[in-house]
């Protein structure tokens, strides 16, 4: 059965299904119960599953992740919502020193099947701390897995796969795409969670993106096609572990690679990808891997965000520079 779903609604249905499938799944977060979350991703779930499984928490992110650890120790699968990307930092200590390390510390005796849902990225005209892209902090942290979904299908299946994962997963949701719709097949998962995917074939340049930037990349490829340039677009999907084999294969054909993300350039995901692509495809590269990212500045006031965020033009500019190299 397929259904046309907005990305946010697909997450809602995915969460519902995960909760139906496994009574140990529980949701925790600020305002996720009675309100259904500030983005309504958990809408209706507390009503149907009760206050013990959809927990409106005190206003304390360390508390959310820290208690999730204890719940996981008794076999629960907590799905924690962080209200906005910029508010994950009070939980950082628990995430980095505990959630990420306990499986290893216990030599596997204490699995940590915790999912941390974070609406991330900019473009919604918000005030400070509501538009951040903190993925590199997590991808640099051994013991965590990090995924970023870009579309309703991956949202619906991805959240269920993340919850089923025995490892902690930082699940990044492209908040400005919550309202974008697509047909979702509710019967069959389209493939594994920790895999990247070529979403458009092409020969001239390999273009990598994830989360909200996938749409931008596809638009850029469309525009480039009109000018006779054929871009292959890869949706990275998993940021840790990275799944670069399809990228290497692509770059070996195209010889050129551009990575796009909203996060600040320096030590953003593009850095790691550039390093690995160069190492693996050294002799195929006709230009260095070019990166299009946010600038190395705090996220600006919203009147400036269009100038801060990578857009179609900046992506095409990088493609041009790559081709001209």
């Amino acid at each position: 059965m397929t259904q046309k779903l907005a990305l946010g609604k697909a997450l809602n249905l995915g969460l519902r299904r995960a909760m139906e499938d496994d009574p140990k799944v529980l949701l925790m977060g600020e305002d996720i119960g009675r309100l259904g979350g500030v983005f309504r991703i958990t809408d209706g779930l507390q009503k149907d599953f009760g206050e013990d499984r959809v927990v409106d928490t005190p206003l304390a992110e360390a508390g959310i992740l820290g208690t999730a650890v204890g719940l996981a120790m008794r076999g629960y699968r907590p799905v924690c919502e962080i209200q906005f990307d910029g508010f994950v930092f009070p939980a950082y200590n628990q995430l980095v020193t505990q959630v990420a390390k306990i499986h290893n510390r216990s030599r596997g005796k204490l699995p940590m099947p915790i999912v941390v849902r974070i609406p991330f990225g900019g473009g919604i005209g918000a005030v400070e701390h509501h538009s951040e892209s903190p993925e590199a902090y997590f991808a640099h942290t051994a013991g965590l897995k990090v995924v970023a979904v870009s579309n309703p299908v991956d949202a619906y299946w991805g959240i269920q796969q993340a919850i089923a994962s025995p490892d902690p997963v930082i699940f990044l949701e492209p908040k400005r795409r919550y309202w974008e719709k697509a047909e979702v097949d509710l019967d069959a998962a389209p493939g594994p969670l920790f895999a990247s995917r070529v979403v458009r074939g092409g020969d001239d340049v390999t273009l990598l993106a994830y989360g909200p930037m996938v749409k931008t990349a596809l638009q850029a490829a469309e525009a480039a096609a009109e000018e006779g340039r054929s871009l292959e677009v890869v949706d990275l999907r998993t940021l840790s572990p990275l799944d670069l084999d399809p990228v290497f294969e692509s770059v070996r054909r195209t010889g050129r690679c551009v990575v796009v993300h909203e996060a600040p350039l320096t030590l953003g995901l593009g850095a790691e990808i550039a390093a690995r692509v160069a190492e693996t495809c050294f002799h195929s590269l006709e230009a260095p891997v070019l990166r299009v990212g946010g600038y190395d500045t705090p996220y600006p006031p919203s009147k400036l965000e269009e100038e801060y965020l990578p857009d179609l033009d900046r992506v095409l500019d990088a493609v041009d520079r790559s081709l001209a190299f």
Partner: protein
Amino acid sequence: MTALQQATEVVDPVPGAQAPHLPGQPDLVQLLTPEGERVEHPEYSIDVSDDELRAVYRDLALVRRWDVEATALQRQGELGIWASLLGQEAAQVGAGRAMEAGDMAFPTYREHGVAWTRGVDPLHVISLFRGVDMGGWDPIAAGLNLYTVVIGAQCLHATGYAMALQRDGAEHAALAFLGDGATSQGEVNEAMIWAAAFSAPVVFFCQNNQYAISVPIERQSRVPLYQRAAGFGFPGVRVDGNDVLAVLAVTRAALAAAREGQGPTFIEAFTYRMGAHTTSDDPTRYRLGGELEQWKLRDPIARLKAYLSRSGIADAAFFDGVDAEGDELAARIRKGTVEMPAPAGTEIFDSVYAEQTPELARQRAEFVAYHEGFEEAGE
């Protein structure tokens, strides 16, 4: 309904909240009943001139007018979001007016009433919500820190500022604002621990408006919030947050104690957020039926107006005058908002560091060249 019945209804426990108390019940400081009667409190008294009372009323009314206008501007697409203070005017104006020059306030994102008492231009606050900047006023000059969006972070800043005041031998105090939800943040509790450990001249002013977005106060604490302070070793007091005189008295006393070296106080201003959390919020999803109506009977402005009228301190001409001033203010705010110049793109780069880095200078230059490219191309 008699006045007494109404009074009884007004002060009834509010469903779903730790109830406010009858006037005179010792743990809720009140100097003005919801009906506008002046009452005395054994520990807190206040001496306010008629002029000052009228000025306080003016503050309350103008701040509300500003707030209403900002909400309208947001609805019309002129602001990204607006966090309304509706219902909390007395708590904010009372606290703000208790401060002296040299004291420093550390607001959250909702303290427009405090900003007003510190003389900050409403347009500076609005520019933040319009997305033009992150608050354009000079924090030190105004005695008001910039708005802090990360819940509770400012409580530690206030405590550190108070430690600096101690070291400077300055007889001033810091006033940290926080919400009821914020009391659950680890950092807020650390701030109280530090303030106690160093006997820092800081007052924690918590507006318990009964909700953290949709989450009612009981999820944060089963006992009245003001009692938290005793566990850290300093006094806590609960004041009727809709009673501007009581707030003024209690905050003045706490600030004076802090300035005199007696260390911190925690003030819980018991109030209610009569509007939505922000313009993005839909309170009908979580508010209990009748709750808002109950609280409307406790309106902080109506209460002072009743007192001023009844006691003859202000007449209709005064109130009309304030209304007219409010209309002017609203017009100025509206005009100032829609005419607010958009920031230059290069501002993204210019204040990240006091000493610009070569890398960021390079990114800035690229940015400029890139955009000049478009201009040349006539795009």
